[in-house]
């Protein structure tokens, strides 16, 4: 008398096929722990290390029609990245951020695999040369970490500085990419 897997999967597929869902999400395993991932019809919109409360955050930003469903493309590209076989992501992104954030995240997206940059350099790249501190805030609120590589942004003296997912994760991602770490 329970909703079996097949019935459940059929409903989820129908809901997505009919375009009734604001945002789909899933939780996947990775070498940096569980990741909550979400996508709209416009593309990947969230990656979060914080799985609890992730769905409430989605409601606030994208709408209440939140449904869990496999995001195969996202999972595959992340798996390839963690396996070391993918250096750039081909995923379409749905960035719903203010203009300044968009400028900074677009500049961030150009920082190559295995390289690092500084908050000041990224501010200049984004066309806001005096906004290094504000760039730090944008990194902290990066809606799509890993894919938008805020882990590649370090302090002017080469220190790791900070990371929304914790410095251990930042270090692990940089080591995975073979980046040279000053500290």
């Amino acid at each position, binding site marked *: 008398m329970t909703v079996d897997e097949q019935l459940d999967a059929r*409903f989820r597929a129908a*809901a997505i096929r*009919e375009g009734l*869902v604001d945002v789909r*999400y899933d939780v996947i395993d990775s070498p940096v722990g569980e990741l909550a991932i979400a996508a709209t019809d416009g593309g990947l919109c969230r990656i979060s290390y914080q799985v609890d409360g992730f769905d409430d955050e989605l409601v606030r930003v994208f709408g*209440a*029609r*939140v*449904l*869990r469903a496999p995001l195969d493309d996202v999972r595959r590209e992340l798996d390839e990245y963690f396996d070391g076989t993918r250096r750039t992501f081909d995923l379409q992104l749905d960035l719903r951020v203010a203009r300044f954030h968009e400028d900074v995240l677009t500049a961030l997206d150009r920082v190559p695999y295995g390289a690092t940059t500084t908050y000041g350099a990224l501010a200049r790249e984004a066309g806001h040369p005096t906004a290094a501190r504000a760039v730090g805030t944008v990194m902290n609120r990066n809606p799509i970490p890993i894919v938008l590589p805020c882990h590649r942004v370090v302090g002017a003296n080469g220190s790791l500085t900070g990371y929304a997912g914790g410095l251990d994760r930042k270090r692990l991602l940089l080591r995975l990419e073979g980046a040279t770490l000053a500290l």
Partner: protein
Amino acid sequence: MMAAVAQRQGIPPFERFYQAHREEVLAYLRRLLGQRAEDAWQETFLRALRAYDRLEHGRHLRAWVFTIATRVAMDELRVKPRAPLEAEPAVELRRDAFREIEHLTDDLPPTERAAVVLRYAYDLPYDDIAAALGSSEEAARAAASSGVRRLRRSQ
């Protein structure tokens, strides 16, 4: 715009609503429709999803989804819910008494079956049952009452 967002903050993510109610809605539809329950179950949650972004608050979602399920089931049975014609004194049952005759509900006419099951198996108040049946509260009470009387006769 901000006010609209704030007003809607009590609405849970659809996924949570779905997880909370999918089992009991399927069980309910199986009582009303038997083998045909699965298609009706999917239709119920698709209808809920279609309407979900128009909800203004997150209260009474359980009664709301039972309302949708009841309408889907009545459509499936092509029944127009109506109050029974005879005006008889209302009959109420205790829940443990209901459990003894629960297995007989399959033989009730659809509107009475829905009213009895919603009242005694799912504990919905009559105003919610009325909404589910698209009738007045009085008619919902009469349908449940008539169902109980019929169950007792067939006992």
